[in-house]
């Protein structure tokens, strides 16, 4: 075990699932820190077209010119010079699970990825450090024209499509970490659903940071054409080393007229990771976008999935749950920008704080002048499980059209003593009763996940709740 690794006996059972790591011999070929030479190296190694290198270099300039955000959790302890921005664990992605290197396969086997692929998924992608190591899609969907690829591969094989959309929803200048992402992005998913195609089974990608001090910058680009429908799930994890790691991925989703798309994610980064992810969907006329998210891991999370309702009648649902334990700041929320008439949005967020954890809901609903008849509904509930924990709710509402109707409601409180008493009278321990109540609290979010993930999220809550009462 490396010197710096935390003694596994000190970790709780939840962490131990994610904290197993493999030796990282490929790390000897990497270096820490970021400069123009590294960006050129990444682009050259991936044999990218010139326009992509230009975009990377332009993003790097923007990154250097922008300051860290002056709001939200303090990021000044994040040592950006000590991050490894690019590490390639394998030479090329495998199409067959048997071809994946054995040490990497072991990690994903422990996380249950291959089994899920066989049983409940339409396709699977797996990324390890900076590169995708495996990608597959069921034949029946390939035949219908669905493309589910590693984004590096898609850039070679579907360059025009990638170029038309890449970083147009999330511009490099949006903030410092989107600029950083534009400069060093690597790997990720490209998903294209043709017109009218309905993919009934979910597609999944799993992102794993394995080495110490890594940065992961995967880019997920999803295009859902007119009247198409799909569900995509992302899972993320990393082991804990006691050194900062950084995740600054980007998810761009383009939902064409009449289409429906659901994006679910369960983020379990290690508790020394900074999760500064950016997610944005552009939703066209009468299209519908759903975000379902669970944030459990990381030291600091700043994540606010955004829907831009661009076409008349577009709509979005944002459902999220965040769990902030010891040493964690979960600054999460949702942004909806209503640009067109008769657009609607619904935001439901739940947070749980315990052991001095901080959970923050930070949201924006922006009704622009042309959004006549827009309707927005926001509901945030917070549970605070002990005297040291903190919960903040910061919902910004901007209205520039008089016909818009917006309703916001938020509550915060503790576990109800009567509920605990009732469950104890039925023979449950106090700890079990508390876990059951917390699972009930997040149930409106969990029920929107496929069964396997709902069970997993409930189990994670139970593990996080160990030792929380009594």
């Amino acid at each position, binding site marked *: 075990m490396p010197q710096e690794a935390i003694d596994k006996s000190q970790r709780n059972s939840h962490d131990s699932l994610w904290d197993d790591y493999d030796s990282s011999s490929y790390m000897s070929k990497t270096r820490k820190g970021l400069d123009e030479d590294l960006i050129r190296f990444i682009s050259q190694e991936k044999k990218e077209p010139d326009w992509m290198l230009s975009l990377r270099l332009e993003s790097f300039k923007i990154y250097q010119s922008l300051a860290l955000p002056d709001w939200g959790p303090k990021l000044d302890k994040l040592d950006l010079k000590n991050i490894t921005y690019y590490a390639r664990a394998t030479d090329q992605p495998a199409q067959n699970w048997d071809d994946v290197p054995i040490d990497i396969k072991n990690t994903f086997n422990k996380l249950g990825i291959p089994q899920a692929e066989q049983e409940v998924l339409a396709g699977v992608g797996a990324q390890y450090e900076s590169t995708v190591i495996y990608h597959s899609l069921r034949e029946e969907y390939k035949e219908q024209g669905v493309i589910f690829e590693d984004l590096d591969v898609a850039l070679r094989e579907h360059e025009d499509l990638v170029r038309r959309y890449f970083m147009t929803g999330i511009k490099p200048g949006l903030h410092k970490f989107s600029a950083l992402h534009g400069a060093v992005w690597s790997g990720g998913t490209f998903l294209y659903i043709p017109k009218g195609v309905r993919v009934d089974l979910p597609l999944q990608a799993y992102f794993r940071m394995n080495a110490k001090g890594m940065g992961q910058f995967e880019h997920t680009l999803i295009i859902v054409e007119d009247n198409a429908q799909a569900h995509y799930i992302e899972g993320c994890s990393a082991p804990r080393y006691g050194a900062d790691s950084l995740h600054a991925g980007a998810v761009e989703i383009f939902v064409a007229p009449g289409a429906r798309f659901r994006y679910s994610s369960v983020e379990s980064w290690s508790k020394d990771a900074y999760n500064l992810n950016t997610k944005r969907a552009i939703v066209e006329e009468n299209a519908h976008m759903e975000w379902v998210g669970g944030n459990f891991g990381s030291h600091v999370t700043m994540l606010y999935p955004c829907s831009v309702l661009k076409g008349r009648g577009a709509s979005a649902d944002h459902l999220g749950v965040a769990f902030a334990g010891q040493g964690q700041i979960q600054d999460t929320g949702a942004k909806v920008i209503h640009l067109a008439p008769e657009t609607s949005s619904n935001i439901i967020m739940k947070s749980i704080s315990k052991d001095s954890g901080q959970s923050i809901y930070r949201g924006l609903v922006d009704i622009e002048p042309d959004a006549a008849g827009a309707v927005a509904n926001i509901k945030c509930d*917070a549970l*605070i*499980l*002990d*005297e040291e*924990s*903190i*919960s*903040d*709710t*910061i*919902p*910004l*509402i*901007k*209205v*520039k*059209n*008089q*016909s*818009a*109707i*917006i*309703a*916001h*409601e*938020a*509550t*915060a*409180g*503790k576990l109800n003593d009567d509920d605990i008493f009732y469950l104890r009278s039925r023979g449950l321990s106090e700890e079990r009763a508390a876990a059951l109540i917390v699972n009930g609290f997040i149930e409106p979010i969990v029920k929107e996940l496929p069964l396997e993930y709902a069970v997993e999220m409930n189990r994670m809550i139970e593990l996080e709740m160990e030792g929380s009462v009594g």
Partner: protein
Amino acid sequence: MAIRKLKDNESLIHISLADESFLFDEASSQATQIRVEAGVCLNYVFFFNSSSCQEVNYQREIFIGAGARVKTFLVWLGRANGHLKFISQLSTKSSIEHRSLYFLLDQQNLKIIEEHNFIGPESKGRFYSNGLLAGQSQVNCNCEINILPKAQDSDSRIDLKLHLLSPQAKGTILPALKIAANRVRAGHGATTASFGPEDLFYLRSRGLSEDQAKSLLVQSAARLFANQIPDRELGKKVLDAIIERL
């Protein structure tokens, strides 16, 4: 009930058991601190209705002693653009019921910052804010409740309402809750709408034009607010000033 008027440039007021329990503030001072001693009941009305168009800036800070009960009313009319900051500090077992109403016209621009700090345990606060925006007016209203670690068993709620009465009016509202104690009840609600579509539909079905219907609904909101002011004469003064703007 005797009403004490705030004097020009009065920056510090102590309200004790011996003092009057009704304070009327016609924005005669830029910054004023009001210290309400333990166990005292106070009604406080801040009324801004200057005809001057010069930009103004006011700050009021109210310290509410243990067991004291305070009702506050903020009314912003007038013609000027302005900044208004209102801070309350609640001690053990104290309570505040805070209502604000602002009615802006033309190109009027108002920034309101409210901070309500729950310092002691078992304190209680209810905060209601009602904004009426006509013409090209704009408001930016930040209303923040801070529950500090010792304010266990506190009970708080904010309700913000924003009514845009014209297509060019704009508003930004931020009802924030910051909670560092776990045995609390805290909630906030915010709504923005022109007026209830059913209400408007009903009034229009009785033959009123849209403007007449909106005017009636504004009067109704103003009357509900004014009726809460414990002094009838002062309530009428506020109501008349609002109706005059219509």
